[in-house]
């Protein structure tokens, strides 16, 4: 008999071998020589953690109890793998392009990075997987016990092996699962160890099977006839269970955290799926090929009451095949350990990322900005989580006592994990799926699973018998195993049917009724249309090619010379002789910083990600890019508006300046003019008054003449001062208007008569008196003053040989206008703008007045509510006087 010590020694050797393999694989991958580690074969074998100790030992027990039904657990995954083109391809592509780290992360990032959802999925996974881990510990303990029973020398304490196994597995998972925080979360060491364990368990099971068929039963034909003769010799299967468990296994295959870990997270190349699509079903088929023969032979030759779950181990032992038994033990050990390690890793990632880290970051406030800081915390959290998950499994095992049949716990866990399926499939294929929908669906499914399957399955006492019999609160339609009064179904079928269908219904309805956030909608589009958004799987291209791409891109952004200098200095810093540096993280980080100076951080990140990552840009990146460009756009449009405003102001300033200069010139001209105007009469007044004073014996006639001259000049001065006063009064608005009634024709008559009185030059005035018979109500004196001014201007300045002034009255747009047009040369173009300004004169040589006349006219007309303007486009000088509205009296 093999002593337990030998067994333990073999076991330890095996474990050390696995450690060595994992260590070597990690070393290989860190040096970059990973070609065979990345082969499709290793990928396929790593998927085999689907086959746990439950498969290795439990399948035979399952077959001994229910015949061929056990095979459904492998048919479901077979169909999923064969149909990889439908779903798995998309799942893997999404997982790679979104850099998801776990199934909780996938669900959360699909539904707008909702952490609530991630926490829900994590809790569901922990609750569903903990019994499963307990199951593995139990199977290892059971197999140890079988050897211990056979060995009279030593008896280990009850369950102590489970403790050591749990501890050892925790150490292994921590050592190889949390070595580094790889961005892609790939663990080549663990995956390689798992692949080797996959080979060991397949070889072990096949060896036992071959021994049973050809060593005990006596060949294939004999085995088949023994099968037919046995108690499971007739095809007899529960139809509902057959279909349900096939579906359940298919769902769990996709949703189980450990399967997601090896299938999606550890996937190196999407094309590996193509191989796994047939190789993994082949593995499953080989694993289940000898299950029924072993079960039948075991039932036949083993004593009554022997545990059929352990036939794989007990048959070789009973037949004295100790080496085979040892191999079989190693197979079972491998199945259990590989599952526990990967499950613990997957769960710890979820727990640390979605529960521990958010809490820690919250507790830290904003102090966690140092990146190295967070890395060590994440690693620490993961290690603690692995230990906690295994401890949980261990305590579950201790508390449950390890009595229940292995298979039922496995199926219950499957049903729990399958509750993720609606949210997962909906998220991948339906853009309308929302966070609320996923939350509601998950909750409904989880509660129903808990109530109808997990709690009743945990044995009597968890749910009171009265509830089982009469339903919750005495409602008979709430009986856990006969919801809504549908009785007589298998509990498993009943629970799966209700929980999954109501889960799906709740998911769909809540999704239809709720409204997703923008991030959710973008993520939804990214997930559902992942094949439009992400590039195809890249082969392992040389790293220098990436550097070249980076170079091409950087040149455009930084400028060719700067980029080349930067790359060269980086290459020198890396100690390489090549011109281009290796695209290692440090270099990429510096390059990103360099680029972000030019194009913004998010854009730089997205650009480098495009070239290096092999993963598509995440929605957050895109949103950040959009934000940045929106900011730039807003900034530039603000600048544009500002510059437009500035140029407008500048133009106004220029105009004002021009006007001021002109006015200043006018003022200067006026001052000289006014001093001249004042000086001329003053000079003659002084001269003549001196004559009167100093000259004796003047004739009275002369005296009178001189006095008259003095008087005239004094009058001229007075007139000038009057004009100035008049204008200043008008401008200050102090004038009072004497409103009166009169006819336009009378006003014009008086104005013409006054203006032309005592002039030396004849001015012919042409009028159309008929049109002038318009009654007005205004300040008649002021209005006639305007006309007098305009007519005398024409008289003074008209340079025609035979001066003539035409006065016409007409209606323009409802207003009465009086045009005064002479036949002279008119006012030059550049002077027109200024004629109404004070002191303006058309030219110095034509000086007659002080240049105040037109300014006074305009002031008067504006006071009266009308206007006077120069009328361009006429033959001679032309002014238009617009009579104010309401000035004329309608009834004549």
């Amino acid at each position: 008999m093999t002593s337990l010590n030998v067994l333990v020694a073999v076991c330890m050797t095996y474990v050390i071998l696995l450690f060595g393999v994992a260590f070597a694989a990690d070393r290989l991958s860190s040096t970059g020589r990973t070609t065979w580690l990345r082969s499709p074969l290793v990928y396929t074998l790593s998927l085999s953690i689907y086959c746990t100790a439950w498969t290795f030992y439990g399948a035979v027990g399952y077959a001994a109890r229910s015949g061929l039904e056990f095979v459904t657990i492998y048919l479901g995954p077979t169909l999923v793998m064969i149909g990889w083109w439908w779903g798995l391809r998309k799942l893997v592509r999404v997982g790679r392009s979104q850099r998801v780290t776990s199934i909780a992360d996938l669900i959360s990032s699909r539904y707008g990075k909702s952490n609530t959802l991630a926490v829900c999925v994590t809790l569901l996974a922990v609750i569903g997987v903990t019994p499963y881990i307990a199951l593995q510990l139990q199977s290892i303990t059971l197999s140890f016990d079988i050897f211990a029973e056979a060995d009279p020398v030593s008896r280990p304490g009850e369950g102590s092996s489970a403790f050591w196994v749990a501890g050892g597995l925790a150490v292994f998972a921590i050592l190889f699962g949390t070595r580094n925080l790889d961005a892609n979360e790939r663990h080549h060491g663990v995956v390689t160890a798992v692949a080797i364990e996959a080979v060991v368990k397949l070889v072990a099971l096949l060896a036992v099977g071959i021994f049973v068929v050809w060593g005990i039963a006596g060949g294939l034909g004999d085995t088949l006839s023994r099968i037919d003769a046995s108690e499971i010799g007739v095809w007899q299967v529960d139809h509902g269970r057959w279909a349900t468990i096939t579906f359940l296994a298919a769902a769990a295959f996709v949703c189980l955290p450990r399967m997601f870990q090896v299938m999606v997270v550890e996937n190196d190349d999407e094309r590996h799926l193509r191989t796994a699509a047939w190789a993994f079903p082949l593995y499953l088929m080989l694993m289940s090929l000898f299950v029924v023969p072993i079960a039948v032979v075991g039932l036949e030759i083993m004593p009554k009451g022997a545990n059929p779950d352990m036939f794989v181990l007990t048959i070789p032992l009973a037949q004295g095949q100790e080496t085979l038994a040892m191999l079989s033990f190693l197979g079972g050990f491998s199945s259990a350990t590989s599952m526990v390690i990967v499950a613990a890793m997957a769960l710890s990632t979820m727990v640390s990322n979605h529960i521990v880290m958010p809490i820690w970051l919250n507790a830290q406030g904003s102090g966690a900005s140092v990146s190295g800081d967070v890395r060590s915390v994440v690693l620490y959290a993961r290690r603690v989580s692995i230990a906690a998950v295994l401890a949980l499994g261990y305590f579950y095992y201790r508390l449950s006592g390890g009595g229940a049949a292995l298979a039922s716990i496995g199926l219950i866990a499957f049903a729990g994990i399958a509750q993720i399926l609606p949210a997962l499939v909906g998220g991948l294929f339906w853009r309308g799926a929302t966070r609320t929908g996923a939350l509601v669906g998950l909750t409904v499914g989880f509660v129903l699973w808990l109530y109808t399957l997990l709690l009743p399955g945990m044995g009597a006492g968890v749910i009171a018998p009265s509830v089982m019999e009469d339903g919750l609160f005495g409602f008979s339609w709430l009986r856990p195993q006969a919801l809504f009064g549908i009785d007589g179904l298998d509990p498993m079928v009943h629970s799966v049917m209700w929980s999954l269908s109501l889960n799906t219904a709740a998911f769909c309805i809540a999704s239809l009724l709720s409204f997703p956030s923008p991030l959710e909608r973008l993520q939804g589009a990214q997930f559902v249309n992942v094949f439009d958004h992400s590039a195809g799987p890249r082969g392992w291209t040389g790293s220098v090619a990436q550097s070249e791409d980076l170079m091409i891109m950087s040149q455009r952004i930084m400028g060719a010379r700067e980029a080349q200098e930067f790359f060269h200095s980086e290459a020198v810093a890396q100690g390489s002789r090549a011109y281009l540096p290796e695209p290692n993280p440090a270099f990429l980080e510096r390059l990103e910083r360099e680029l972000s100076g030019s194009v913004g951080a998010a854009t730089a990140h997205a650009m480098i990600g495009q070239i290096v990552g092999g993963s598509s840009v995440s929605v957050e990146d895109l949103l950040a890019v959009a934000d940045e460009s929106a900011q730039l756009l807003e900034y530039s449009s603000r600048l544009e508006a500002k510059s437009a405003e500035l140029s407008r102001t500048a133009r106004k300033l220029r105009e004002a300046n021009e006007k001021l200069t002109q006015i200043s010139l006018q003022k200067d001209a006026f001052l000289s003019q006014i001093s001249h105007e004042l000086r001329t009469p003053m000079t003659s007044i002084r001269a003549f008054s001196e004559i009167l004073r100093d000259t004796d014996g003047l004739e009275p006639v002369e005296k009178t003449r001189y006095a008259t001259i003095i008087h005239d000049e004094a009058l001229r001065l007075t007139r000038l001062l009057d004009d100035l006063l008049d204008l200043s009064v008008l401008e200050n608005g102090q004038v009072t208007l004497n409103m009166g009634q009169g006819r336009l024709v009378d006003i014009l008559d008086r104005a013409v008569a006054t203006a032309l009185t005592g002039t030396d030059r004849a001015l012919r005035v042409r009028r159309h008196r008929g049109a002038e018979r318009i009654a007005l109500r205004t300040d008649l004196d002021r209005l006639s003053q305007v006309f007098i001014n305009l007519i005398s201007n024409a008289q003074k300045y008209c340079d025609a040989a035979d001066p003539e002034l035409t006065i016409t009255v007409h209606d323009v747009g409802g207003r009465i206008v009086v045009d005064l047009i002479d036949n002279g040369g008119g006012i030059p173009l550049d002077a027109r703008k200024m004629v109404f300004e004070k002191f303006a004169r058309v030219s110095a040589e034509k000086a007659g007045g002080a240049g105040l006349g037109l300014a006074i006219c305009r002031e008067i007309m504006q006071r009266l509510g009308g206007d006077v303007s120069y009328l361009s486009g006429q033959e001679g000088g032309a002014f238009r006087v617009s009579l104010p509205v309401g000035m004329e009296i309608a009834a004549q």
Partner: protein
Amino acid sequence: MSRSAGEETGRNPVQPPPVFLERQSYRRRRLMDAARLLPLMGAALFAVPLLWPSEGAGTVRMSAAITYVFGVWAILIAVSALFGRATRQSGGHQIGQETER
């Protein structure tokens, strides 16, 4: 990014693909259709045992049931492997870039 668009067309001007390729890619797409139908066929075949009588005279022997289930299983694996090889060979390295249609 615009990098690929501008640069690539500049370097290799687009040439019309030879006609026989179209036939090839058409074949490849139909092969993919068939590959997609495979799991449905498998599910239907695995459901056939549900039609067998479980009691009475016409019950099926366990050996026959095992032969049937494992036979279907083996055929599915073989066909799937063949599809994998066929699409890989005709598709070359471009197969993964094929968008769904």
